């Protein structure tokens, strides 16, 4: 049934394990602190309508395509692009973009570990507690930040080291249901607080005039892209471990994309009702979680339990993303270097810790990385993936050969249109919008520096891809 490379490749043991690993990879910290306020501040219910439309037009077909690419080639990002595009440079772009994101994501998981520790020991409930002081004190202790960053890398390294089925799948089978239950129970409490309806109204009341604003659609597009992990190579890599008799469209496409949104909405029903009940500004970004919420839990009856549940959910959401997303560079490094999986994991985790040090130590560097990678690298990686899929390899070809192979749901020719036109056009629009917005909202030096970095990054990817391809050709 399978060729030589594919036969040696690890496969998922259970369908639920694959689905929850995909979901755990896509649901991250941004679902909890970012989605609710982006939705609320961009038209509430009207934003949600735009978001759901884009989810089905862009994320669902895109994720199906990515997973199909991975299973078709039976390889990580570089091997897949080498087979489907004829050269591995786009795979290098995807891998390095994802690795770059992880260098500043692991420090943030480190913060969550630190706050989870405080939630366990009940710091937020001590007399005279001030969350601003804890946050500022944390930011001013480099050793503590480095230790938390190291803890995040270590904790996520364990499932990766154990392998796909024994590590990622088993960990996800426990952690994803746990964070779903934790958030669900906390939402039940949040919705019964006095004044919580203001938060629900903020999230769902539609301001239809916002739908005529291109900025709202582009904000929804950006959130769809960042939240569902489209273009990060995650669906491609995790899909490469699917057996040939497994479905792709229903699980890797619809369940993953819409399931991720379900968790975002659930998080919105925790965060917004709580902050509205206590009159806190919901647009403060990550500080909403690290400064505002810790002040609110002590004001609730049985607050310790709600606090612990919330931070458990928050921690697990971060960890499941951390280890599943790192599978993208780990798989590539293992395949290109010829090292064992365990060696590849050790090298990659050491590298992500080392290169994550500037982001761990300096919050402004962390924001700069997010500015560059979130604005440009991610849409570029998605564009490269879709152009390869839709144009270089052929949308109809991959649909008939892989997407509909063993599918639980038939995917018709509409998919070819989404992959060839709609997603690339959306990514191009997003890139133009981000660039124009950066010139307006940031200094010219910062924006031009960011664009220069992107150009250098693409050049390095191209050269690295050529080197790898030549080495493979020589071996062949």
């Amino acid at each position: 049934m399978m060729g030589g490379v594919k036969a040696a490749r690890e496969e998922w043991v259970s369908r639920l394990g694959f689905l929850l690993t995909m979901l755990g990879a896509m649901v991250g910290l941004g679902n909890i602190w970012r989605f609710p306020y982006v939705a609320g501040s961009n038209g509430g219910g009207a934003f949600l309508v735009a978001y759901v439309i884009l989810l089905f037009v862009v994320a669902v077909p895109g994720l199906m395509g990515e997973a199909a690419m991975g299973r078709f080639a039976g390889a990580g990002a570089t091997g897949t692009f080498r087979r489907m595009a004829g050269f591995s440079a786009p795979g290098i772009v995807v891998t390095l973009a994802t690795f770059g994101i992880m260098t500043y994501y692991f420090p943030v998981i480190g913060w969550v570990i630190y706050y989870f520790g405080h939630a366990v020991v009940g710091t937020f409930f001590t007399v005279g507690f001030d969350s601003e002081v804890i946050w500022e004190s944390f930011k001013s202790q480099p050793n503590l930040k480095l230790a938390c960053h190291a803890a995040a890398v270590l904790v996520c390294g364990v499932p990766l080291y154990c392998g796909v089925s024994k590590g990622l799948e088993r960990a996800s089978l426990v952690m994803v249901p746990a964070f779903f239950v934790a958030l669900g129970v906390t939402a039940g409490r949040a919705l019964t607080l006095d004044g919580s309806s203001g938060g629900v109204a903020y999230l769902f009341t539609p301001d239809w005039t916002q739908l005529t604003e291109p900025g709202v659609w582009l904000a929804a597009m950006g959130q769809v892209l960042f939240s569902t992990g489209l273009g990060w190579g995650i669906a491609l890599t995790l899909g490469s471990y699917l057996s040939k008799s497994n479905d792709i469209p229903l699980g890797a496409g619809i369940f993953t994309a819409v399931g991720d949104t379900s968790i975002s909405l659930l998080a919105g029903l925790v965060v917004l009702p709580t902050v509205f009940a206590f009159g806190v500004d919901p647009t403060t970004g990550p500080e909403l979680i690290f400064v505002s919420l810790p002040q609110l839990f002590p004001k609730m009856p049985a607050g310790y339990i709600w606090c612990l549940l919330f931070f458990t959910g928050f921690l697990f959401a971060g960890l499941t993303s951390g280890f599943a997303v790192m599978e993208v560079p780990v798989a590539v490094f293992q395949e290109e270097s010829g090292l064992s999986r365990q060696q590849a994991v050790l090298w990659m985790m050491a590298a992500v810790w080392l290169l994550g040090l500037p982001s761990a130590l300096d919050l402004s560097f962390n924001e700069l990385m997010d500015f560059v990678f979130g604005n440009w690298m991610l849409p570029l990686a998605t564009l490269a993936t879709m152009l390869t899929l839709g144009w270089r390899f052929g949308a109809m070809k991959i649909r008939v050969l892989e997407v509909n192979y063993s599918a639980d749901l038939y995917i018709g020719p509409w998919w070819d249109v989404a992959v060839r036109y709609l997603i690339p056009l959306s990514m191009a629009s997003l890139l133009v919008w981000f660039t124009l917005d950066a010139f307006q909202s940031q200094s010219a030096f910062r924006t031009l520096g960011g664009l220069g970095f992107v150009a250098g990054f693409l050049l390095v990817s191209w050269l690295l891809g050529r080197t790898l391809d030549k080495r493979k050709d020589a071996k062949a």
Partner: protein
Amino acid sequence: MTVLSWIMLVAVLTVVWGVTAWSLLRTLKLEGHKADIIRRVGNIEHYSPKALQDLEVWLAQHPHAPEAEMARRRLMETRLRLERTNPADRFYRWPTDAPQNVL
């Protein structure tokens, strides 16, 4: 909360949570069904009737593509499987005279 807010809340949650639950339950059920057939008869037919038709169309349009050989092999495998298996052991719903139709 206005009436419109309530309508949006119910509509969005019904669509998003409903599709999530439906897709999860459906894929788990169908993959379980596949596993049963594979245990019983060794494999499944990998293409649904519509998907097989698309494969034939693509093959007719691209007979010399690098992947055409793979497509032909898959087409033959599916036809053979449909000929050799009882309708009860098929994963997809085929018309009762499926093998003849497909052939």
